[in-house]
Each structure stands twice: as structure tokens, then as C-alpha cells.
């Protein structure tokens, strides 16, 4: 299942001009606030009609301005999860959940209510009304409602932006479960690098209305040239498998054969995880350091050094565990004589990796 999007639209300060594909899994539109991401999703939903464009969902043409095709939002077979939830205040949670199901065409593959309630932990909330729910609970219901509409495409516009950190941490796993249990493409808008790192199968980086890069998450996030939300948010994603949990509260993982030690992760041995390693938490050394407190040392070859506007530079290193990004000062890069092709050691403190940066793979 595939979503093809191509559109051009005047948006006040700049012109939106994008073209990308979203396969199964979560495709994140990643960019700063105001870069046009919400407009793109609204165009896919039919809530915004672009000046020019063509949108095809799984071989159904939803929009083709050249051919004069414009399918109305209610016929696009979508499920849209909004930032503010937008639950219907006069209906119970159960009725909200069932709303989309009522309008789905007869032959559509329907999700099972019990399954969705289970997936999102909504059992206790079914007879309540939205006014009696917390922010996090509302978003979970919003996810369930979108799912139960038997959509061919799920849209999510910064669904976690209105929640505090604790709620975000609570809800993010539900999106991971969503990604892992449905086969329809999920188009997800976000400006948070850690959300992207955890959820994205595919990343489409957007800046000022243009696509800067698109591709598998690890690739795009590991590309030092692509920093839509700035250098501070740079960080690559590693795929690791849980090996064992140690008695002293650490877990041992293996990423491409390289051992990683992290504070205890909430996963069973054998589970696959994504680990986001923030670039500013990575120290580089020309020789393998000894006597350091840091537990994780990944050796690799420098792929690219990209100076930034200020005193910093991002170094991209290819290791057996995957691409790692490190943010250093240009002075240090020069002092160490870093150059492309060199062997270098990346040091990562175990405790530097936040639990929010660890997600199901």
C-alpha cells in the first residue's frame, strides 16, 4: 500500500512544492513549525485544495488538479488524528469510537472494536464523555476512532504536541503499536526529533515548503546535511537487539555485533529496539580510549564532516551498529585532524540515552 503525493501551493510567506511517497508503516513529515507540514496533511485529507497537485492513495486518485478530480474529504477513506483530539463532546467514548465505523462502506475491512480497545487500553473509559477524560486519554480515543473508521490511510498532525512530557511518553508506545499492527500507511507530522526517531519507518524532511530528503528513517536521520529542526536535534538511530538484563540495573544490547550497555530497558531479551543517540552526547577519539567512565565505544570510519554556521560541526561515522552522528567543535575537529575515511571511536554514555529515545523497532 502506497501513498503518492505531489503538490504545489502558495502559502503566504513561501510556496509549498513537495513530492514524496509514503509506503506502509509510519512516514513522518519532519520539519520546523510553519514549514508547511500541516498544510500537506490537510491537502491529503481534502481539507485544503492545493493550487496544483496529484494525490494517489493505493491506486485511488484522491486529487488531480490537472484532470479536475477532487474527491471530497468524507469519501477519501481516511482516519485523521488531530493535535487537539477533536472528540465529539456530546457522544460517549464508545460512540466516538464507533463514529467512523458507521460511515465506512460495506465491503471495508473493519478493525475489531475489542481489539482496538485492548490495543489502546480504553476499556475503563468506554461510557465516559470527553469532558471527563485527561489529555492523554483523549488522544488514545482519537487514535482508536481513526482506526475504527476502517481507513485506507491514517493521518496524524502532531498528535503529541499538546501533551506534557509524561503523557507523551505514555502515548508514544501506542503509536508504535499502531505502526506495528496496521498495514495502511500512516502519515505523521512532527517537529520532534525523538518522536521521529522512535516512530518513523520513512522520513520526509521538510524545510520552507520543500522536501530536503526522503528515505528510510535511519538513512535520513543519519544524514548530517538534513537537519530540519536544527543541529541541536541531530541524532542517529541504531537498531539493537536486547541480549540480557544485568543485576546492577543495566541492560546489554547488541547492535550489529557491537555491545551496548544502557540503563534497564523495558523489553524482553530478544526484542528489537531503536535507539536514538543524540549527536551532542557523542564524544570522538582518534584512538580507542581507556579508563573512561563511559561504557559504550563504537568504532567506525568517518563518512562526512559537515561544519555548521557556528562553532560546531557534525561528523557522520559509519559503524557496524549503523550510522552515528557526533557534534563537535570545529576547533576539536581540526585539532584531532579529523578527515573523511579515518578510523575514529565514538563514545556514548549509557545514561545519556533517555528512555524516551528507546522504542520498539
Amino acid at each position, binding site marked *: 500500500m502506497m501513498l503518492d503525493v505531489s503538490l504545489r501551493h502558495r502559502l503566504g510567506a513561501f510556496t509549498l512544492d513537495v513530492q514524496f511517497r509514503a509506503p506502509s508503516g509510519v512516514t513522518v513529515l519532519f520539519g520546523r513549525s510553519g514549514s508547511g507540514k500541516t498544510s500537506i496533511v490537510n491537502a491529503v485529507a481534502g*481539507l485544503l485544495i492545493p493550487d496544483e497537485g496529484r494525490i494517489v492513495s493505493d491506486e485511488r486518485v484522491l486529487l488531480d488538479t490537472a484532470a479536475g478530480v477532487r474527491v471530497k474529504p*468524507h469519501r477519501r477513506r481516511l482516519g*485523521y488524528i488531530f493535535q*487537539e483530539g477533536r472528540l*465529539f*463532546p*456530546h457522544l460517549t467514548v464508545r460512540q466516538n469510537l464507533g*463514529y467512523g465505523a458507521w460511515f465506512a462502506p460495506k465491503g471495508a475491512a473493519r478493525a475489531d472494536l475489542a481489539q482496538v480497545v485492548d490495543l489502546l487500553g480504553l476499556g475503563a473509559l468506554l461510557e465516559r*464523555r470527553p469532558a471527563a477524560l485527561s489529555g492523554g486519554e483523549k488522544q488514545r480515543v482519537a487514535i482508536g476512532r481513526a482506526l475504527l473508521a476502517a481507513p485506507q490511510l491514517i493521518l496524524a498532525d502532531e498528535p503529541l504536541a499538546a501533551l506534557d512530557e509524561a503523557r507523551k511518553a505514555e502515548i508514544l508506545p501506542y503509536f508504535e503499536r499502531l505502526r506495528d499492527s496496521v498495514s495502511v500507511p500512516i502519515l505523521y507530522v512532527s517537529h520532534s526529533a525523538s518522536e521521529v526517531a522512535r516512530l518513523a519507518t520513512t522520513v520526509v524532511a521538510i524545510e520552507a515548503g520543500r522536501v530536503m530528503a526522503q528515505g528510510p528513517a535511519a538513512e535520513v536521520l543519519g544524514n548530517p546535511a538534513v537537519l530540519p529542526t536544527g543541529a541541536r536535534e541531530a541524532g542517529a538511530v541504531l537498531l539493537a537487539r536486547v541480549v540480557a538484563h544485568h543485576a546492577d540495573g543495566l541492560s546489554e544490547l547488541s547492535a550489529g555485533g557491537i555491545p551496548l550497555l544502557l540503563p534497564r530497558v523495558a523489553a524482553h531479551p530478544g526484542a528489537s529496539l531503536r535507539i536514538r543517540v543524540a549527536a551532542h552526547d557523542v564524544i570522538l577519539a582518534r584512538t580507542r580510549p581507556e579508563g573512561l567512565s563511559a561504557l559504550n565505544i563504537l568504532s567506525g570510519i568517518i563518512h562526512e564532516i559537515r561544519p555548521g554556521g557556528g562553532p560546531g560541526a557534525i561528523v557522520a561515522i559509519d559503524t557496524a551498529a549503523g550510522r552515528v552522528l557526533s557534534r563537535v567543535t570545529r576547533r576539536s575537529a581540526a585539532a584531532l585532524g579529523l578527515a573523511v575515511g579515518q578510523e575514529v571511536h565514538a563514545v556514548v554514555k549509557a545514561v545519556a540515552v533517555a528512555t524516551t529515545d528507546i522504542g520498539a523497532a
Partner: protein
Amino acid sequence: MTDWLSPAEWDAVRLSLRVALWATLINLPVGIALAYALARGRFPGRGLLNVAVHLPLIMPPVVTGYLLLLGFGARGPIGGFFESSLGLSFAFRWTGAALAAGVMALPFMVRAVRLSIEAVDPRLEQAAATLGASRLWVFLTVTFPLIIPGILAGTVLTFAKGMGEFGATITFVSNIPGQTQTIPLAIDLLLETPGGEGRAARLAALSIALAASALALSEWLSRRVAARVGGQ
């Protein structure tokens, strides 16, 4: 109890209730449709429509009555059409009184419902559309339940106005006991007759009691609806 008012006066009460009821029943769909068009519609002439709806509020009731006479009387273009194709006549009949009451009360219904519709977050309507609801279904399942308080307010105002309408009624359908002599017209007649003040006062008291009951009922209904939406 029955000799508290004379038979003619009880006739006036029954007629008033009938007139007010029908004025309200017809104004509900018309008023809701107009309110929706004015609140959510984007079409040329919308401003003009808004002015037209408010005319009965601004024009002297006698003028409105006279215009109704010209348009809906037996010789009027619309009145003639209704009579020949639907067998429905307004001139000098209670139907005309109901029409006059309805027209005079329409601005109240439209205003109340329109304010309610504008208070409904359009983003909720958008959300409903993305879940598969066509514009009509969005209205029926999302907008309408949320505007019920406004509809109730408009209904009470329409009913009260229908019970109290005078100028347009007497100018359009005159004062005919049993057909068009509603409570206000009966009271007017009694006031203009020497010695009729006592009976006029009794009729007025009854009219106030009826309007107050309608208001109380609508307040109670409003509270119940608000409780449902509020999360009880």
C-alpha cells in the same frame, strides 16, 4: 374556572395557542436552514439575505402586515398560488394569523440558532468529515445535537412572539372572533371598549402565564442538554 373568561375569550386562548404552535413548527425548519446558510454558507447575496431576515424586526409591524396582505392575500401573487395549487388560503383565516406570527418571529429564531451554530467548533465538523460523514450527516450527527440549546431558545422566543403578535396580524387578517382573534387582538378590543379593562387584565394574565410556562420548560430542557454535553 370556565366562567373566569367568557367563551369568546377562551376561543381567543385556544386560537392563540394554535397560531403560536404552528408559527413555531414552521419556523423551526425554515429558521434552522436560514441560520445554517448564514452561519456556514459562502454565497453572493448572503448579506442581503441577512438583512431580509431581520426586516420584520426593523419595520413597523403594520407595514409587515400590509406587505403580507399584498403578497399572501387572496389576490396576492403568493396567496393566489397557494390557494390554487395547495388549497391553502391565508386571508382572514387563522392560517394568516399563524403566518403573520411566524414572519414576525423568524428573526428571533434565526438569530438564536445562528449564534449557536457559530459557537460549534468547525474543526469538529472537519473531524467528522474525515471520518466519512457527508455534509448532511455532519449536520445531523454533530452540528445539530450541539445547537439544541440555541434551537430551544429560538423556539421559546418564537412561541412567545407568536402569542403576543398584534400589529401585523390585525393589519393582515383583521379581527375575526374564532378565526383571527388571538389573545392580543381580544385584549385590544376589550381595552377599546368602555369597561373592558377587567377582562383584558385577566386575558393578559393568562397570556403571561402561558409564556412563562414555555420559558420554564425551555430552561429545564436546556439544562438537561447542557448536562449531557458537559460530561455527566
